[in-house]
């Protein structure tokens, strides 16, 4: 197993929600042999398959954090309150918060789990990624790439 898994979540057709998958695209180009890259699209429950039995997982996702667009915050799930949707009307309501709650209660979490949240600006269908988020994606790719080198050196 590779020492690190990076998962991007989001819908590529919805403006800044594409941030997670686009960070994965950027990392793929850098081709680090030490890291497993997963574009989970917008199927959050599918994430559960990539959390179990792994040591370190980093998740990149557009997060509503009341920050300015493009701001990136790195946090562990226990450092924040993640708002659960109160209304599971349909399978489509299952998002990252629900998937992580489920993984926690089923004891399927990896040893280390970090979330890189990117504050989006616009999430309309068929809209372009905003320039502030594009900059953030580029920066995050390099930041994660650098951290990957350190992980590789230490493992």
């Amino acid at each position, binding site marked *: 197993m590779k020492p690190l898994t990076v998962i991007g*979540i*989001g*819908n*590529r*057709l*919805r403006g800044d*929600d594409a941030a997670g998958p686009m960070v994965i695209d950027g990392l793929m180009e850098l081709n680090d042999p030490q890291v*497993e*890259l*997963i*574009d*989970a*699209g*917008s*199927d*959050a*429950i*599918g994430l*559960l*398959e*990539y959390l179990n039995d792994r040591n370190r997982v980093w998740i990149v*996702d*557009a*997060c*509503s*954090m009341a920050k300015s667009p493009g701001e990136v*915050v790195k*946090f562990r799930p226990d*450092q*924040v*309150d*993640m*708002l659960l*949707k*109160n*209304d*599971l*009307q*349909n*399978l*489509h*309501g*299952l*998002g*990252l*918060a629900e998937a992580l*709650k*489920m993984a926690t*209660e*089923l004891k399927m979490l990896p040893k280390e789990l970090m*979330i890189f*949240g990117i504050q*989006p600006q616009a*999430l*309309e*269908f*068929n809209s372009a990624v905003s320039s502030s988020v594009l900059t953030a994606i580029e920066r995050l790719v390099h930041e994660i790439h650098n951290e990957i080198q350190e992980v590789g050196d230490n493992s």
Partner: protein
Amino acid sequence: MSQDLNIKVHHLTRVEGHGNIVVNMKDGVLEKAHLSIVEPPRFFEAMMKGRSFHEAAIITSRICGICSLGHQITSLVATEDALGLEISEQTELLRKLLVNGATLQSNVLHAYFLAAPDFLKVGSVFPLIATHKDVVLRALRMKRLANDIGDIVSGRAVHPITPVPGGFTRIPEKSELVELKRRLLEEALPDGIATIETMKSLAGAIPQFERETEYISLKHPDEYALYQGDIFSSDSGAQDVHNYLDVTNEFIVDHSTSKHARFNRSSYFVGALARWNNNHTQLVPEALEAAEAMGLKPNCYNPYMNTIAQVVEAVHVIFDSVRIIDTLLEKGLKNEKPNQTPTRYGRGIGSNEVPRGILFHDYTYDKKGSIVEANCIIPTGQNLANIDDDMKKLVPEIIAKSKEEITADLEMLVRAYDPCISCSVHMLDVDFIE
């Protein structure tokens, strides 16, 4: 309960596209009962215009994380119809295997994560993790196997996507299919049988409500139709899929930004229950036995039984997938290249039964192989009028119950259809703990 009733269930999440239930009764007369949908504006055509035939399926597969494969395969069928691309028998079998996997995954998750909490009256799937952990793990195990079907046949998160117009860019290895068959028989089948037992034990909690309506699904001469066939209405029989607009007849209503559909009546039903009513004789015997065990009979007019029909289909697709793998292995896997040489450019229609019901994609291509017109009609849009009609019959029947009980019954009704009303962002909403 008094003669006046006002229910407004607003799903106040920051995710757009959620359904609000609105019921209004005055002096014992029902004035309003509907599901109002606030949906993103129609975006499909704008998104597809100008795209090449190589891109269409990739883009549509991203519309929705849950319904990804259904859009992808239906898009391929529409493109092939428009461009006159013939596909091989092997391609068709591999696609049917994919559709089975997607049906298994969605039906199982819906039954366990949405319907079971309703039947047990626990509000959501989370309390079940503490009380019925084995059941939740079983659901995830079945989802995983279904995902692995997709992984082996179509690639996924970690691989390039292999289904393209005209075929596949990669054919699975014989050993992969042999292993998949083993897991279907040794893992999925026992889990499927256990699922029947679980649902049987919960069946007493299914509301007894009936409303006969028009049931529309695909119908195939040789098999239980999930991949292609004719459109079939329980009222008026078969139609070629190229006439789908005569069936869907979309119209605008004032309480919803999503169009409604109607054919021979004011509304029609699509989804597992429609497929059951129209095509149950084509299910494998084991699925028919499962239906009997869970109390699902033809014809069934109780929309809450949609979940049971989904479980019956889960059993069917396990057996059907084994049959497909046997056929593929018997014929020998051929390393075919996709047929991507158009023989014409024009309009094409694709239609498949995706878990929530009949789906249509409709593209017109210009001579460069780019899309100039596109339309997509999803199952949930077609079910909206039917849900409203159900509510109008249901509310007066349960008016003696408390407002909370009525609300719960209505929410459960909507969930029985498992609507796809938020093909949307799954953005994490975070508050930092100070």
